[in-house]
């Protein structure tokens, strides 16, 4: 067992660290850095969301809500009330964690479509509050956000942001990999397979589901806060239902129950539109065709499908997810 997991944990981490370290060689201007940073931030959200969707088998269509609360919480506290950005970010994260904890308990009792509906509803409520409370949030036109400062040191340069986001992404991936490999992670995968079966084995399903729900909300919130400070501007378009769908799509595209799949999915869906934009009117068609093709020929997502293709004999137990398609 240990041997099998040593490879994604150590090998994968080293590969990701190398990619992050070497990528700047190819980033010739701030625009490329900008895209890379967005990839990193989306990847952090997806790594968290993947724990919930891919491993615990619980769908969330409201994660843009947590992302938005993190972004707006940090933006409002730092820009309207003059709190230090780091403190604002941490406070927003705490609030999001508390909300996810309180709401998660009843919501996670639901299954399948009902859970999807409940999380969707949560996301929509958060969106409506943010779009309506224009005194605080600037309403649908959005609000500007101060730069991220620690003491007198302001984080402005895209290069600096790149390293910060890169380090955080590594930390997020490391946390996720460790969690999956812990008893809690095994419990999650057990209840993904069969919730009744897991409970018979003495696993507290409700507690584990709640835990992973809160963790994924926290990941989303931190990425949201950072995005707000990095962009210097935030509008409710990042809190919409569509953005929730986008996040789930990234996870499914990259490969559910694969942490690196979540990273690849986030990267692909963030970078692709930037390249396809040269196609003008055909952009959406080509983008749609690529998505369809991937899901038809790689139904398990890019990373797990490729991993299987290149190592047909070795089948790590962690990759086997009966019924993982059903969760989408």
């Amino acid at each position: 067992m240990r041997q099998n997991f040593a490879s994604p944990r150590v090998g994968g981490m080293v590969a990701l660290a190398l990619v992050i370290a070497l990528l700047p060689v190819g980033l010739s201007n701030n625009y490329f850095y900008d895209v890379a940073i967005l990839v990193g931030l989306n990847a952090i959200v997806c790594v968290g969301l993947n724990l919930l969707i891919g491993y615990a088998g619980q769908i969330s269509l409201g994660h843009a809500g947590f992302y938005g609360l993190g972004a707006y919480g940090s933006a409002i506290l730092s820009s309207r009330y003059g709190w230090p950005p780091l403190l604002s970010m941490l406070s927003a994260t705490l609030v999001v964690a508390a909300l996810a904890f309180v709401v998660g308990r009843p919501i996670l009792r639901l299954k399948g479509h009902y859970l999807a509906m409940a999380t969707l509803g949560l996301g929509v409520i958060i969106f409506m509050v943010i779009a309506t409370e224009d005194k605080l949030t600037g309403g649908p036109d959005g609000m500007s956000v101060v730069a991220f400062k620690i003491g007198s040191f302001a984080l402005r340069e895209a290069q600096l942001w790149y390293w910060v986001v890169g380090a955080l992404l590594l930390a997020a991936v490391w946390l996720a990999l460790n969690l999956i490999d812990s008893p809690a992670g095994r419990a999650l995968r057990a209840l993904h397979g069969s919730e009744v079966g897991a409970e018979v084995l003495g696993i507290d399903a409700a507690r584990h589901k709640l835990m992973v729900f809160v963790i994924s909300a926290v990941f989303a919130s931190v990425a949201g806060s950072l995005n707000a400070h990095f962009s210097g501007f935030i509008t409710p378009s990042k809190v919409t239902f569509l953005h929730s769908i986008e996040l789930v799509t990234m996870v499914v595209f990259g490969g559910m129950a694969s942490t690196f799949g979540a990273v690849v999915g986030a990267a692909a869906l963030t970078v692709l539109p930037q390249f396809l934009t040269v196609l003008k009117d055909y952009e959406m068609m080509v983008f749609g065709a690529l998505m369809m093709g991937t899901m038809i020929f790689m139904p398990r997502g890019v990373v797990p499908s490729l991993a299987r293709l290149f190592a047909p004999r070795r089948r790590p137990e962690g990759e086997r997810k009966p019924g993982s398609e059903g969760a989408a």
Partner: protein
Amino acid sequence: MMSTLARYGITRGLAATTAVFLACAGAAFAQGQGPIKIGSVLSITGAASFLGDPEAKTIEFYVEKINAAGGVLGRKLQLITYDDGSDAEKARTFSKRLIEQDKVDVLLGGSSTGTSMPVMPLAAEAQIPFISFGGAVGIIEPVQKWVFKTPHTDRMACEKIFVDMQSRKLTRLALISGAGGFDKSMRTECLNVAKKSGVEVIADENYGAGDTDMTAQLTKIKNTAGVQAVLNAGFGPGPAIVTRNFRQLGMTVPLYQSHGVGSKEFIKLAGAAAEGVRLPAAALLVAKDLPAKDPQRAVVVNYTREYEAKFKSEVSTFGGHAYDGLMLVVGALKSAKSSDKAKVRDALENTKGYMGTGGVVNMSPTDHLGLDLSAFRMLEVKGGNWTLVK
């Protein structure tokens, strides 16, 4: 994916290094040769596509036209347009791309206030002139050195309506507004300037984004004692529903709509209920009704004819804003006699007497819009069409 990005980046990096050497060798010489690059980020798809679509069409059409006539300063215009899908973050990323990678000389667009605001700090940082097509007054107030805009502000719309109300001896107003960015911004501005204009707002109702019936809010307004006029700050289908409900309830006080309903679609949706509704709008909507001696007539009639012939669809004021933006830039390039960003910016700021589809533009260091209240015409719906209020 990543390796493509990396390889692409390395070539770019080499190109950039070479470019730096070249620039050192003969900056002035190299600069004068290539095309003048105009970068544009517009909401061609998504929620604000009704703004971005006519804007993109207009800019593309007129850039072609200008190039066919020999370009500006003997150089061709090169247009680079990106679609932000009505997403502010994409607008920011694409603007960065225009500045950093495409190295454009001027930025046009930001179809809405939301997609313009995140571009403003980038323009300031890169010191590049930026003309927004967003409506809110917050884009030009406080004035930012590199930021201009062409559409009339919501504050002007409020003021225009209040002036009209005063001429009809109406002072007690009921406000009803929607949930969109435009609606909210206009409501705030109207509340701000009401007192100064001698208008008292005695009711202030809201409706949601997808509401299909506003009878409840209007009933409340109807039962508020002393309401002399109703103003609806709204966009999209909302105002048409308000207008219908308004007539269904048998309300007889004057109803004002905002410049946000300035398209034939509103009259179609509201039907007979639209009769008698007044709104402030640019002269573009009544191009053919303008008196022959009106100085704006030539511009708006021309634009209407060319746009409708090319795209077989009716003009909207939004495309007009893009037309004005492009022409202001062309004018500034000509008077600056260079595509140098700082010189173009100075020329933009000194624009005087430009006659556009939105009105006469007189920019100054304290006014980066340059339109006054005369730019708005008060229109009234009569016989299913816009007519000028005399």
